């Protein structure tokens, strides 16, 4: 493979440095709106759909990056777009299942959902799996960033007379330090606004590169006619080659990846939770998936297509042997002029940084919510004072730094894959299925028990480990004719096997609940503890590969049975306690969210001025009786107050409750806390809208 160094000019570097400084200043400006951990992680749940849609672009495009899709576009053509255009199948589940549950149940993290839906033990296991997933994802992000900038850097540089080689890991460490700065001091509001800006810039930069590239090869007709037919097809070959085939990627990306991205990517979920209500979240998801993702597919892959066209006409300019992960940088440097190349590279690296930032912020949220707070609760510190809030915000920032370091270390697990795409595919196939299956069955199947979810985690992981060790025996029946590459067996289609075994375990345990109960009635605490030790030893034996395959398979069956029985004994399942946490009880979730019966009457949206009320500490706001009638609102209903300037996207807004009415039409009385939280300016007009 041909690799590159020193691509670009000093003008490009100046443009990049200026771009980064501007982005960091922009992020720092919005960091001042972070006052609480809710702001730090969720941006205060107040933003409009368009702002979230565009800010998701930088996150989505960054994570499904220019580097890896250009690489596949260079190797296989338009089928590089597959993974951007197969997400719609699970959107009904997301829009009308997971999203309203997340908002109405007021959970702050996915593991917290597991505690409320199942049990604290399920939360503990979910936290471990989710942190592994998130940190791995950050590692993939850093790896991509490193591969993007390495071609622009020299092979070595001199410091105080000694030569320092520029290696991938060294470049990643420097990038990690820069990346950590504004996330640590900014928080979610800073990330959302930075991503908003970068979303627009990214799409512009990608389309600019496509336009310039098409002109470079001689126009669209020339470009289209240059490409071989197989390069123009939008889907990959059904089952070959093993490194890029349709059916493997369907199960790895369209199924495990799409559900993983929509249901368990805490970074993306936090964006949707930053929307001002469920309907705005649905709009953000719909517009993003229907229109922005197809455009993004062109934006991220076109460098590979242009590179292919150039390599056909002028192999002396772009050799067919260029390393796939470097094709984006190579093409961008050839078709653009100095300065423009710097701008394109700045947009690329900044987008990747956005992804990593979002993930760091999200992982810190999981850590604070599911490790830090439970420990504090265990130690008896449950009272939330302003001092405690400050301490928690400080802990969130320190956690962000720690997560950044772990993310850099995670790169070591992926850096030996031939391309970032395969590293990411392998990672997704391996880590997402247990959590994806657990969330999915938890949300949509009310009979799915705590015993089933815990057994899915332990038994599913055990079967996945066996699949990884014996792919020729266990994964081969699912391979759809894909050839097994012994170096990296079934990178993608293993997702089907992993998902199948996790669903199988969860379903089997749920269907056999009554059988488990016949055992649990005969058990006492001592026998349950003894069985727990046996199950633990079996799990230990499977993890550390102490058994030959026949015994390992038998042991896994025993492990599944024991885990189901033990969990059923310790955690009896009561369906009445899960109201509000499945798609079967969304209306109840709304009632719990509001604290009373929702008022679904549709009223007007009204404009008004705010005034400060003296000395009031309660969370009510007061409208005139006439205004409340126009909004069809009653005392105790929920209301959203927002600055009328739409371009702010809800930055200056609050959610609150209707209090007792007064007689001054067009005026709302708010207290000092609400004023500070809403960031309302003097003499600005607000609009008020009844929520429920």
């Amino acid at each position, binding site marked *: 493979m041909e690799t590159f160094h020193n691509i670009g000019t000093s003008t490009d570097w100046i443009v990049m440095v200026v771009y980064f400084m501007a982005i960091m200043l922009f992020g720092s400006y919005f960091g001042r709106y972070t006052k609480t951990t809710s702001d730090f992680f969720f941006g205060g749940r107040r933003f409009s759909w368009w702002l979230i849609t565009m800010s998701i672009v930088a996150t989505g495009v960054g994570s499904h990056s220019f580097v890896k899709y250009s690489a596949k576009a260079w190797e296989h053509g338009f089928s590089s777009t597959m993974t951007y255009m197969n997400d719609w199948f699970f959107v009904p589940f997301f829009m009308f299942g997971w999203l*309203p549950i997340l908002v109405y149940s007021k959970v702050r993290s996915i593991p917290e959902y597991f505690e409320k839906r199942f049990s604290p033990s399920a939360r503990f296991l979910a936290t471990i799996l989710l942190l592994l997933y998130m940190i791995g994802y950050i590692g993939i992000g850093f790896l991509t960033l490193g591969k993007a900038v390495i071609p622009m850097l020299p092979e070595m540089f001199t410091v105080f007379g000694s030569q320092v080689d520029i290696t991938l890991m060294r470049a990643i460490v420097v990038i990690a330090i820069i990346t950590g700065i504004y996330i640590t001091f900014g928080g979610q509001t800073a990330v959302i606004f930075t991503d908003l800006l970068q979303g627009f810039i990214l799409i512009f930069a990608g389309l600019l590169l496509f336009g310039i590239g098409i002109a470079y090869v001689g126009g669209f007709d020339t470009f289209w006619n240059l490409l071989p037919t197989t390069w123009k097809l939008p889907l990959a070959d059904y089952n070959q080659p093993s490194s890029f085939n349709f059916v493997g990627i369907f199960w790895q990306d369209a199924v495990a990846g799409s559900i993983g991205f929509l249901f368990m990517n805490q970074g993306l979920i936090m964006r949707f939770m930053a929307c001002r209500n469920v309907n705005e979240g649905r709009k953000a998801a719909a517009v993003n998936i229907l229109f922005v993702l197809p455009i993004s597919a062109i934006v991220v892959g076109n460098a590979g297509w242009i590179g292919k066209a150039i390599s056909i006409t002028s192999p002396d300019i772009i050799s067919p042997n260029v390393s796939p992960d470097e094709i984006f940088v190579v093409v961008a440097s050839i078709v653009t002029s100095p300065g423009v190349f710097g701008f394109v590279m700045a947009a690329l690296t900044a987008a990747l940084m956005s992804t990593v930032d979002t993930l760091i912020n999200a992982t810190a949220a999981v850590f604070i919510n599911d490790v830090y707070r439970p420990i504090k609760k265990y130690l008896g510190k449950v009272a939330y004072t302003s001092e405690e809030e400050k301490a928690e915000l400080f802990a969130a920032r320190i956690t962000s730094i720690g997560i950044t370091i772990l993310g850099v270390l995670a790169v070591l697990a992926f850096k030996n894959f031939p391309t970032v795409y395969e590293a990411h595919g392998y990672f997704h196939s391996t880590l997402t299925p247990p959590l994806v299956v657990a969330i999915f069955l938890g949300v949509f199947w009310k009979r799915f028990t705590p015993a089933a979810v815990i057994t899915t985690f332990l038994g599913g992981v055990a079967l996945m480990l066996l699949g990884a060790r014996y792919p020729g025996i266990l994964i081969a029946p699912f391979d759809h004719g894909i050839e097994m590459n012994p170096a990296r067996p079934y990178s993608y289609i293993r997702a089907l096997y992993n998902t199948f075994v996790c669903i199988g375990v969860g379903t089997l345990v749920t269907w056999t609940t009554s059988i488990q109960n016949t055992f649990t009635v005969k058990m006492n605490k001592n026998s349950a503890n003894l069985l727990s030790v046996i199950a633990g030893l079996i799990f230990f034996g499977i993890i550390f590969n102490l058994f030959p395959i026949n015994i390992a398979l038998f042991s896994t069956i025993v492990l599944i049975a024991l885990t189901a029985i033990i969990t059923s004994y310790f955690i009896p399942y009561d369906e009445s306690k899960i109201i509000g946490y499945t*798609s079967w009880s969304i209306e109840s979730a709304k009632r719990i969210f509001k604290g009373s019966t929702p008022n*679904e009457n549709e009223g007007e949206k009204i404009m008004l001025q705010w005034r400060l009320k003296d000395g009031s500490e309660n969370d009510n706001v007061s409208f005139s009786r006439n205004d409340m009638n126009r909004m069809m609102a009653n005392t105790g209903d929920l209301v959203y107050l927002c600055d009328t300037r739409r371009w702010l996207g809800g930055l200056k807004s609050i959610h609150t409750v209707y209090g007792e009415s007064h007689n001054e039409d067009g005026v709302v009385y708010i207290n000092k806390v609400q004023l500070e939280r809403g960031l309302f300016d003097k003499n600005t007009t607000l609009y008020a809208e009844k929520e429920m």
Partner: protein
Amino acid sequence: MDLFSHSWLPFLYLYGVGGIFFALGLFIIRRSGSLNLTKPRHSKWLKVLYFGFVWYLMIHGVFTYLALG
């Protein structure tokens, strides 16, 4: 050159198996009541969901047709 395994076979698999997941999703959200068609807003969302499926099916279908010439 037989391009069926590179063109219409993956297309059929994508919208066949993917379509089963999509239909299952619609069935569950309607059956569970989380998509309540008595609410006008939900009816609009159902149309959006159908539109999305057809939108992507058409994009892939048209591009496959154009690529095969």
